């Protein structure tokens, strides 16, 4: 009842007074919890012994990192190339598998409720495991290398891609599909003519978006032996070769900047 009768005629305000109080009180409680949590962390979990030397250690590490060992880039071209391949092939694999899963998961195209449940489970399972953990498991099974990394990226991406795709499928204009159905088209034809054209821009957008994420994700897979530039990173860190570490970080930064640029360009071109 935002309209309130007063002697001077009805007035309007966004919320009633009790509602306004509830909202105000909720904010108060929320902020109090945050402050309390900060204090708890400061009391219990903070190792105060490290605090006095924080500044010194940080400058020390930075000073060991500069100047970056520029010549090391010669060793890095191959791992960068591997990293891009892991991201690209993993994304392609994920998209190919994501399309049927998305159609099975979307309410308006799923053949059966049980199929939908399975599809949704696959999506959640894929999303709930970090790509680094997928990689760990796959390195165990397949041995270290690019294949394990590619599969890890692919498996991790299926869920995210499928989720975005099936949401797009659920939001299509149903009239266009109905018109195709009315011609006597089969269910597959209805998908191909009524649904695919409507969701193609989203599909392309999701693929590029995911590739962009995967380029960043695949730079760390080498930490667990799944190929790519992360292998050099963990090696250099283990041997305390800090000038190499800084070179690698610059190389990763460069790769990510370029991939963001490419994906932005591609997205503009298709949407």
């Amino acid at each position, binding site marked *: 009842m935002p309209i309130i009768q007063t002697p001077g005629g009805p007035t309007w305000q966004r919320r009633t007074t009790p509602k306004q109080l509830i909202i105000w009180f909720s904010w108060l409680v929320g902020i109090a919890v945050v402050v309390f949590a900060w204090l708890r962390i400061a009391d219990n979990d903070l190792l105060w012994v490290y605090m006095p030397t924080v500044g010194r250690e940080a400058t020390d590490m930075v000073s060991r990192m500069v100047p970056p060992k520029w010549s090391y880039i010669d060793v890095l071209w191959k791992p960068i190339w591997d990293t891009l391949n892991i991201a690209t092939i993993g994304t392609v694999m994920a998209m190919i598998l994501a399309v049927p899963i998305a159609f099975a998961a979307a309410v308006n195209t799923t053949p059966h409720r049980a199929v939908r449940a399975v599809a949704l489970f696959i999506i959640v399972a894929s999303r709930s495991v970090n790509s680094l953990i997928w990689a760990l498991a796959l390195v165990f099974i397949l041995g270290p290398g690019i294949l394990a990394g590619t599969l890890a990226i692919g498996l991790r991406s299926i869920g995210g891609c499928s989720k975005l795709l099936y949401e797009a499928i659920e939001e299509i204009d149903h009239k*266009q599909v109905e*018109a195709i159905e009315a011609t*006597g088209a089969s269910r597959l034809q209805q998908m191909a003519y009524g649904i695919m054209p409507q969701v193609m821009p989203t599909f392309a957008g999701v693929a590029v978006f995911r590739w962009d994420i995967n380029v960043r994700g695949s730079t760390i897979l080498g930490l667990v032996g799944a190929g790519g530039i992360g292998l050099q990173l963990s090696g250099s860190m283990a041997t305390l070769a800090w000038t190499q570490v800084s070179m690698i970080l610059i190389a990763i930064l460069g790769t990510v900047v370029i991939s963001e640029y490419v994906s932005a360009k591609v997205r503009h071109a298709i949407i």
Partner: protein
Amino acid sequence: MLRLVNVLKRYKTGDVALNNVSLEIPDGQVIALIGPSGAGKSTLIRCVNRLVTPTEGKIFLGDTELTALSSRALRKARRRMGMIFQEYALVERLTVMENVLSGRLGYVGFWASWFRKFPKKDVQEAYRLLDRVGLMDMADKRADELSGGQRQRVGICRALIQNPELLLVDEPTASLDPKTSRQIMRLINELCAERGLAAIINIHDVHLAQMYSQRIVGLKLGELVFDGPPDGLVPDVLTEIYGEEDWEATIEDVDEDDEDVDEDGETEGPRT
């Protein structure tokens, strides 16, 4: 001939959209279906091609009992019924040609349609139809580049390329301006005459209904309340269908010239 026998449609919500409607439409007859929003006009034509499944009753197209078909047989039967929609319902991101050819989907296999390998005679027929409705140059344009009138012409081509016996036309002019509305109605009428097609045309505009149909059927709250010739729509009948209103101005100039049509700007309510 299309025959509806005691058709009843009750939606899950409990609303009865059609109540015991019986109707016979001989080959080649164009009928206009009028009635207020929510009277069941859309439901009626959707029951015929079973985009909506009737709860009770039977519908026959020729000797085929549409209400008893398996899904495979239903697909075959749908090829005999072309449908034209209120907001055109073209696939917006496909070209005009692809939209027209999609009317042949009931005749070609999945992979042929996926790779757009339609039989040559289908493509020729598509060009012939586009030429007939004056859109020959538009074949390669994407559907969302066209104007409303042009889109509806594409919708008409898509229905006709099915080579149907019957057209189901749902509010073909509701999104069009008065002049385009007349052109579209005239076109549908001419095409039905050329091909000996029967048609059910749902329409809000009583005046257009009278001009372009041989018979008028009035629905009110799911029941058939009028069935007669266009000049039988006297004010009393309109009051019966739509409710009390001064109807003289709506119907008096039936035989007059094309100049001014009173567009009724009513928008379609929820389909019930």
